[in-house]
């Protein structure tokens, strides 16, 4: 199995508004490897959310391929796409989109409904996830009684429920204040580094994007040539993705296991 989790080939999305056609995404080629934390930046209307919808099986491209875990999902019938959304993809939304009548624990457990996991396994996994996002103490609270940052943490835990191949985050800090933004980005970074979670995050905030391992720029539906390496990790959270031992931000190789750091 290759190291590539997600790949697009000549991806194109055209919207027709009357006789007028708008190229939301044009000839886009992207490769995301396992464990990557990719930030896609771009101004409003550049096609960021459209791209995320195409990658997340929420929308169909006009042309091109989206290969997720070696499967071209553009060729998967509409009725079978739910399996990819359930097991391969975890979504994080700007507005959190938690179900208001369910508690934090119930929201996190929701994607596991209908899986082969037993009830106790599901509950155990839910507790683990809430522990990871630091919300064990607030697990019985319903969204209206949680702060915005806490709601987004629950949403992240929910996205991780079925251990997906990739997390797709659409402006995950768009509704948060600076302090909470920092906490959420640090959480995503931590997940990428310690859990090896592959993340594609769309944002228009360069400060947020700079925390990702890779920064891509989208303009008028096309990826620009320039690509930047982000800080990848936030100070104080630096650990090797391979051996999980502490590292420094300027290390290119892990001083403990000797493996290359991306």
């Amino acid at each position: 199995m290759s190291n590539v989790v997600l790949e697009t080939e000549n991806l194109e999305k055209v919207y027709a508004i009357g006789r007028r056609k708008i190229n939301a995404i044009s000839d886009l080629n992207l490769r995301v490897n396992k464990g990557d934390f990719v930030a896609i930046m771009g101004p409003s209307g550049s096609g960021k959310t459209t791209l995320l919808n195409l990658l997340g099986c929420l929308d169909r491209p006009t042309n091109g391929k989206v290969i997720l875990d070696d499967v071209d999902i553009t060729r998967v019938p509409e009725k079978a796409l739910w399996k990819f959304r359930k097991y391969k993809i975890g979504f994080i939304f700007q507005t959190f989109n938690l179900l208001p009548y369910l508690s934090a624990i119930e929201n996190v457990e929701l994607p596991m409904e209908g899986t082969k996991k037993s009830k106790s396994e599901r509950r155990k996994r839910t507790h683990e996830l809430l522990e990871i996002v630091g919300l064990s103490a607030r697990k019985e609270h319903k969204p209206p009684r949680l702060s915005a940052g806490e709601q987004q943490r629950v949403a992240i835990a929910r996205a991780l429920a079925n251990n997906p191949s990739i997390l797709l985050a659409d402006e995950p800090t768009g509704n948060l204040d600076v302090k909470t933004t920092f906490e959420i980005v640090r959480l995503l970074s931590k997940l990428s580094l310690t859990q090896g979670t592959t993340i594609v995050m769309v944002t228009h905030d360069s400060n947020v994007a700079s925390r990702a391992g890779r920064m891509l720029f989208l303009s008028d539906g096309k990826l620009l040539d320039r690509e930047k390496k982000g800080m990848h990790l936030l100070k104080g959270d630096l650990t090797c993705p391979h051996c999980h031992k502490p590292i420094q931000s300027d290390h290119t190789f892990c001083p403990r296991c000797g493996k290359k750091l991306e």
Partner: protein
Amino acid sequence: MGALTRAVRNVSRRKIRTFLVIIALSFSMAIMISIPAGIMANQKAAQSIIENYNNTITSMQEEINKTSTLIEISASSRRGMFSGTPSGMPFPGFEQEETFINATVVDEISTIEGVKDIVPFLEVSSEETTEETMSTPRGSFTISRPVYTITGVCLKSTFIDEYSILPTNVIDGRNLTEGDSGIIIISLNLSDYYSVYVGDKLKVYSETFKVVGIYNSTARTVHMNITDVQRITENMGNVSRLDVYVEDISYVDGIAEVIEAAYPEFYVTTYEDRLANLERTQEMYETTLENAESTVSQTQAVAFQEILVAIVATSLIVLFMMLYTVRERTKEIGVLKAIGFSNWNVMSQFILEGILLSVIAGGVGALMGTIGAPVISSLLLPSVNPFSTHQSGFPTQNINFGTALSQSVTVTPDPQTLLLAFSVFLLLGALGSLYPAWRAARTSPMEALRYE
């Protein structure tokens, strides 16, 4: 955390809306239960009319056969009309002046060849009257009528033994016997009316009589020695009716003609007259039956329409409620699909909510229907009422429908009806939510997530 728990939370989180929908659905359910119960009650009522008809005709036939050698002579025309009536109670609203036959007529008739026995009766109304309100299709009015009727009987043992001149169904105490005077027997109805029992005394006109027996009858009557009646009503030497028994049935017509010729002021009734009366009664019964059957079929037609309306209303209420819910929760549908819910998962969620509403409303409606079936069915269905024939001019006093009907027409839904209505209701809940659920399932997750 399953789909059912989510359905319960969703149904319960909008309490006022859910409450109103459940009330509306409950009424539909109550109608679905009450109407079949009403139909069954009407069918039972019609059945009781038929049974009553058969019993009355049979007893009248037997009575006529037993009295083939009897010629009745009465001072009033109505006596003849009412021959064979079990009660002898005047029909309310018919006031008449009491006229009498002088006892000397007995001696004159007894000289006619072929006459075997002459049994005199004196029937008078009580002094006390009661006011009763009558309800008719043309309105209500109040009438005054005697509380009871007094029948004076000639207490000769040969008459008592041979002609059944006294009530035969004494349920307490004893019957009258030859020579009794100053004592009475009363009907059960009168006993209940005055709370007078065997051994008690009852004032009749100016005198007080001891009650020695009570006989079973729905009419309010008193039987006593004819001489006592003549004395207290100051009708010495008067009778109101003569039962003339002849030697053989072949003499009846001849003797009746002689009596009619000699006493044109009296009304003479023979076996043939009573048969004719029976035929009139039969005709009246048949008309009543036709009316009852027609009402039953009308009821069924009306019931079918009303149940259809209830079914359509139930489906529409669930349909619009669920359509509104789906629209309101579009974004939630988008989220569910984005996190991996299949179309079937989403669809079943909404169908489950529709069924849950139906289960709650079905339960409430079943309770409402069980308790309110008599009221609901009386509001929505025409009832089988044989007395409606009264307005067409038929005398119904010979037919005692009332008791039979009041006992038989009890509108209570049976368990099978409840179960069937509940099952239909659940099915309607599922069908009503099918289209909204299907719409929810085919919603594009991307568009749903954009919905505000």
